[in-house]
C-alpha cells in the first residue's frame, strides 16, 4: 500500500522535505511507517523514533494500522497561540 507522509516545522527541516510517499506492506502500523521513513536516510534518520502522528487529520497512536492512501502526518510538539 502507498502511504503519504507529511512533515511540518522542525521535522520538515530535519528530513529536508515536506512530503514523502512510500510503499509499505499491508498491515503496517503508523510506527512501522515512521521506522521505514527513518530508514530511508537523507536526513529522515534524524526524525524522532516515536513522534506524535495524525492519520488522515486525526491524532492517532503509533500502534494504529494504516490503510492504502492514508495521509500520515508527523507532528512536532505543538506551539500555537
Amino acid at each position, binding site marked *: 500500500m502507498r502511504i503519504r507522509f507529511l512533515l511540518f516545522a522542525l521535522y520538515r527541516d530535519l528530513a529536508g522535505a515536506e512530503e514523502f510517499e512510500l510503499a509499505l506492506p499491508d498491515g503496517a502500523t503508523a510506527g512501522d511507517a515512521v521506522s521505514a521513513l527513518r530508514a530511508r536516510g537523507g536526513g529522515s534518520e534524524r526524525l524522532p523514533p516515536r513522534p506524535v502522528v495524525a492519520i488522515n487529520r486525526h491524532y492517532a497512536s503509533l500502534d494504529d494500522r494504516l490503510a492504502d492512501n492514508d495521509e500520515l502526518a508527523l507532528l512536532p510538539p505543538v*506551539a500555537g497561540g
Partner: protein
Amino acid sequence: MTPAVITRDPIDTAALLDAAGDAANGAVTLFVGVVRDHNDDRPVTGMRYDAYEAMASDVLHEIVAEARTAMGEGTVLAVHRIGELAIGDVSVAIAAGAPHRAPTFDAARYVIEQIKLRLPVWKEEHYTDGAARWLPGQVPPMVQS
C-alpha cells in the same frame, strides 16, 4: 461569521468583538495573542507560523464547539493566523459572548489553553542577529505514547 478560522490574512479583532457581542450577549471576553519583540530576553524581529492547515481547521472547530457547549448559551469565535508575522501582529484572537460574564472568561481561557495543547501549529522565531529557531511546544495529551 465562521466560528473557527485558520488564515494568512490579518485578524480583524473589531469584527470578532462585534460578532460575539450581539444584543443578547451582555458580556464579551476577547483574548488576543500578539507577536512580542523579545522572548527570554532575546530580541525578536518576527515569527513564522506553520500549520497542518486542514487538520488545524478541524481541531479549532472542535475546540470552539467544546467551549460553546460548556458555556450553555452565547457565541464563541476563534481565528489563528499563520505565515510570516511581524512584531505587534495579532497571531490569535478568541471572542466569547454570553448573557453573563463568568462563562465568557472561562470560554476564552479554555480555547487558548486548548490551542496551546492541541492545535497543529508551530512557530519559528526570528532574531535580530539573523538566527531563527522553532519554539519548543507541547505534546498533545490525547496521544502521549
